[in-house]
């Protein structure tokens, strides 16, 4: 290992590979002009910052933009990006100063980076607030479009299972260059220990090669190796004079660093002490700020402060800060146990956080205020509870959201504030529906209507009607939905409220969308996009569904509406499944299942998609996802959530030759569908009950193809399925005809789809003349491109980038990346342009 040890600075022992990985990533960016993301991970103190220091120190001709996330309980929203905006200045700083939404900030940042390339470093993203993570997520989706290397560092030992960074890391995918900073080897520790006289083996054993611990242990300078990092830091601090020690204490309560003017106010004339601390290597002073050399050292010092002096220090900081960022003031206020200041700054910080979409932080700031709000006026307290509920709901903390509303509602009741009580009840109804408490949701919405109606037309009453119409629609009670709908229209007319006006246009219409956008109602506009994407799918207008789904997905992605994205992805998965594009269906479903969100509806569709594709292909374990989907559907008791999983389980039993189980698997959903007289649901389930030999009773508005199949018109049903664009269902219908020629056609179709289980069932049924052995689907064009690859190739011809292709085909960028690599490899092409040339020579396009 000796050859990898540089002569200068022991912090960089054994980091050659990591530095090379970063340098190679930057070289690619430089050459191609396409941006990249690099993720540097490692335990606390392992040397991530030192690595980044060395990397940016070696750069020539690159602008470096660098900021770090703060180790505060509740960090300031967008902290690191606001800092970067401040450094860059210009338009970016102007936008940043106005409390921007993450997408607006990202858009301007991308413009800035495309005009002037940079290496953008965001450190400690495990501490990032939600809005910062949103910017990172959006930035990464577009990073290819700007000549920039984005470097993010994080502690991988601090990522708990539900850590918000986890979901984001999943989305970064393989596009990211990943650098894992591991502890120093025993050999490297020995090299370091050689000059110190410490026992090298003991040093390695105690520190496990953690760079920071090793450095501190060596600097502590005792005869033996300190037990812990904390002991090492304290041993080092113990050698400082009193003034220097006081300075350390003051700096320790202002993470991550204290600005010089603030420090001067806290401890006037501390220059000598500061020199002593920097010389001793405890503190670092740069760009007008003073901070610990490492967060671990700050924590060690902060821990030794007795509660009393800690409180006093925080009080001094609070007084010296003046009118700083309210998130920062709220932090010190709480540490100083200054209730008045907490109640002043925490709600303000919450408001600002929510305004930029940092709802996780907003929820915590309101919680902070509420912890001390016993003597606050009830109406104010209830207002904070509702705001906390909203932020919790948007960050998937459903139980907390419900809890906050349930405290707020009786307060409003007590106050006699009917409008607020009704509105909170409407919210309660909305939040109850998402995890599947459908009955409770309806009860709350009805209560809201009952409270609000006597007061005459109001915005709140209109929204309550909208909630009722939504619940009736979801419950497949369309007459009832129409009734609420008409009442909503009356209230919209009477009040002229823009949000009600948007809602009053036909659900999910383009006009509704325009109205919402015109009034800056982004979330409402996203909700309308949901309708635009869903309606054509349920009507089996697949082309429209695909197109509007992609538009809606792009809109919600750009505006950080992550919850809505999942709904849209689940519909795209369902549409692709029904059109026989199973790889795509699985890709969309996987994206949903990767994130642990609580919304049941998208999860049910995603699980059903995965389970069905497995069953049809004859792949292992179709039942776990299907059982989970069915269980989630049944808990809600909502027919719309039960039918697809029930039908999927029936189909799976049928494919496995266990028709006798179909009755039990579908009874509950079928009876509900019959009781509610819902045609599509009765049809979807009746087909499987019919195939299992059960008698079925059709109702009026069963879909045509279902009715045909049940009445024995199999060929006509197949034709109808084909016309709709559902090749698998068409093949199943053909297989039922009993005509051997048509059955062979069905068999071919199933083979083409990769529906091995269905094909095997057809073979078992004794149809003669079916070919043996697997098909060679990729042998159909001269260069062995798959259908998907040809599709991607066509978009390459249009000059689209990977990110654009991904959007167009609803794939992840990494999947597109792989398709493009496969295309280049198969065509023997060195570049995209060359591939396009080859393809047209070979006549593939």
């Amino acid at each position, binding site marked *: 290992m000796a050859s990898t040890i540089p002569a200068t600075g022991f912090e960089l022992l054994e980091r050659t590979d990591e530095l090379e990985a970063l340098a190679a990533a930057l070289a690619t960016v430089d050459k191609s002009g396409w941006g990249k993301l690099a993720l540097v991970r490692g335990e606390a103190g392992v040397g991530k910052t030192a690595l980044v220091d060395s990397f940016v120190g070696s750069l020539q001709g690159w602008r470096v933009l660098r900021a770090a996330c703060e180790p505060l309980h509740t960090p300031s929203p967008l902290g690191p990006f606001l800092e970067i905006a401040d450094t860059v200045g210009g338009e970016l700083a102007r936008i940043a100063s106005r409390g921007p939404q993450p997408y607006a900030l990202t858009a301007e940042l991308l413009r800035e980076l495309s005009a002037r390339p940079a290496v953008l470093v965001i450190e400690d993203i495990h501490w990032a607030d939600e809005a910062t993570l949103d910017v990172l997520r959006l930035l990464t989706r577009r990073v290819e479009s700007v000549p920039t290397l984005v470097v993010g560092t994080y502690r991988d030992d601090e990522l708990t299972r539900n850590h918000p960074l986890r979901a984001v890391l999943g989305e970064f995918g393989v596009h990211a260059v990943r650098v894992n900073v591991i502890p120093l080897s025993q050999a490297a520790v020995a090299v370091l220990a050689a000059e110190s006289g410490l026992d090298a083996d003991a040093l390695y054993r105690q520190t496990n090669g953690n760079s920071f611990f090793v450095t501190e242990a060596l600097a502590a300078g005792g005869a033996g190796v300190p037990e812990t990092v904390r002991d090492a830091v304290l041993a080092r601090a113990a050698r400082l004079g009193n003034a220097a020690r006081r300075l350390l204490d003051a700096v320790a309560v202002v993470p991550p660093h204290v600005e010089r003017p603030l420090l001067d106010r806290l401890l006037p004339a501390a220059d000598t002490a500061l020199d002593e601390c920097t010389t001793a290597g405890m503190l670092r002073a740069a760009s007008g700020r003073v901070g610990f050399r490492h967060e671990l050292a700050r924590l060690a010092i902060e821990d030794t402060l007795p509660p009393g002096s800690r409180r006093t220090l925080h009080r001094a900081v609070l007084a010296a800060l003046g009118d700083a960022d309210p998130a920062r003031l709220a932090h010190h206020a709480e540490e100083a146990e200054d209730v008045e200041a907490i109640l002043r700054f925490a709600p303000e910080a919450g408001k600002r956080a929510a305004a930029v979409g940092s709802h996780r932080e907003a929820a915590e700031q309101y919680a902070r205020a509420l912890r001390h709000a016993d003597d606050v006026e009830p109406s104010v307290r209830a207002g904070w509870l509702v705001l906390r509920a909203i932020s919790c709901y948007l960050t998937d903390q459903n139980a907390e959201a419900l809890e906050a509303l349930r405290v707020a509602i009786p307060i409003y009741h007590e106050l006699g504030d009917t409008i607020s009580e009704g509105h909170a009840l409407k919210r309660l109804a909305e939040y109850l529906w998402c995890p599947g408490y459908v009955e409770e949701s309806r009860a709350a919405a009805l209560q809201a209507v009952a409270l609000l109606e006597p007061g005459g037309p109001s915005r709140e009453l209109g929204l309550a009607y909208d909630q009722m119409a939504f619940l009736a629609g979801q419950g497949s009670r369309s007459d009832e939905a129409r009734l609420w709908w008409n009442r909503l229209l009356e209230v919209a007319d009477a009040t002229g409220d823009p949000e009600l006006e948007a809602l009053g246009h036909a659900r999910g219409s383009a006009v509704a969308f325009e109205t919402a956008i015109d009034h800056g109602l982004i979330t409402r506009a996203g909700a309308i996009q949901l309708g635009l994407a869903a309606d054509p799918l349920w009507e089996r207008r697949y082309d429209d569904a695909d197109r509007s789904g992609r538009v809606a997905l792009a809109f919600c992605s750009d505006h950080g509406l992550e919850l809505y994205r999942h709904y849209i992805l689940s519909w795209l998965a369902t549409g692709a499944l029904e059109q026989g594009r199973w790889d795509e269906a699985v*890709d969309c479903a996987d994206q949903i299942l990767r994130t642990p969100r609580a919304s049941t509806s998208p999860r049910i569709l995603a699980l059903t998609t995965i389970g069905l*594709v497995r069953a049809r*292909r004859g*792949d*292992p374990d179709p039942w776990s996802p299907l059982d989970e989907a069915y269980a989630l559907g049944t808990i809600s008791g909502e027919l719309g959530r039960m039918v697809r999983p029930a039908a999927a389980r029936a189909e799976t039993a049928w494919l496995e030759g266990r028709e006798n189980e179909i009755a039990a698997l579908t009874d509950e959903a079928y009876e509900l569908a019959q009781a509610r007289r819902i045609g599509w649901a009765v049809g979807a389930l009746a087909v499987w009950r019919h195939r299992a030999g059960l008698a079925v009773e059709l109702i009026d508005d069963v879909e045509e193809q279902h009715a045909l199949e049940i009445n024995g018109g199999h060929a006509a049903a197949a034709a109808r399925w084909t016309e709709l664009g559902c090749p698998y269902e068409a093949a199943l219908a053909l297989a039922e005809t009993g005509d051997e020629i048509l059955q062979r056609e069905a068999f071919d179709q199933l083979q083409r789809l990769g529906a091995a289980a269905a094909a095997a069932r057809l073979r078992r049924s004794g149809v003669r003349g079916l070919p043996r052995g*697997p098909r*060679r689907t*990729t042998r159909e064009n001269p260069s062995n491109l*798959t259908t998907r690859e040809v599709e991607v190739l066509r978009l390459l011809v249009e000059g689209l980038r990977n990110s654009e292709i991904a959007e167009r085909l609803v794939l992840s960028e990494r999947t597109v990346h*792989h398709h493009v690599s496969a295309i280049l490899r198969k065509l023997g092409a060195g570049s995209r342009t060359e591939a396009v040339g080859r393809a047209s020579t070979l006549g593939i396009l």
Partner: protein
Amino acid sequence: MPRYVVERTFPEGLEIPADARGATACLGIVERNADDGVTWIRSYVTGDRSKTYCVYDAPSPEAIRRTAGRNELPVDRITEVRVLDPYFHF
């Protein structure tokens, strides 16, 4: 992580030369698998090299199919398996 046996058919025979080219081909596959958390343990190849039985660790059957597509490998059948070691009892 579940373990799977993946059966594949190569009508023209599987060709992986026992030289540097073969090594590169195999490493390429391993690398492309890693993106989906798929680990290729080993494969058993029939005498005529027309069929392989490949042992994989993978998070899901979908991941197996996705990487197969990326590696241009055919998939006939995926079966989830557990290890049975005859010498375990001794």
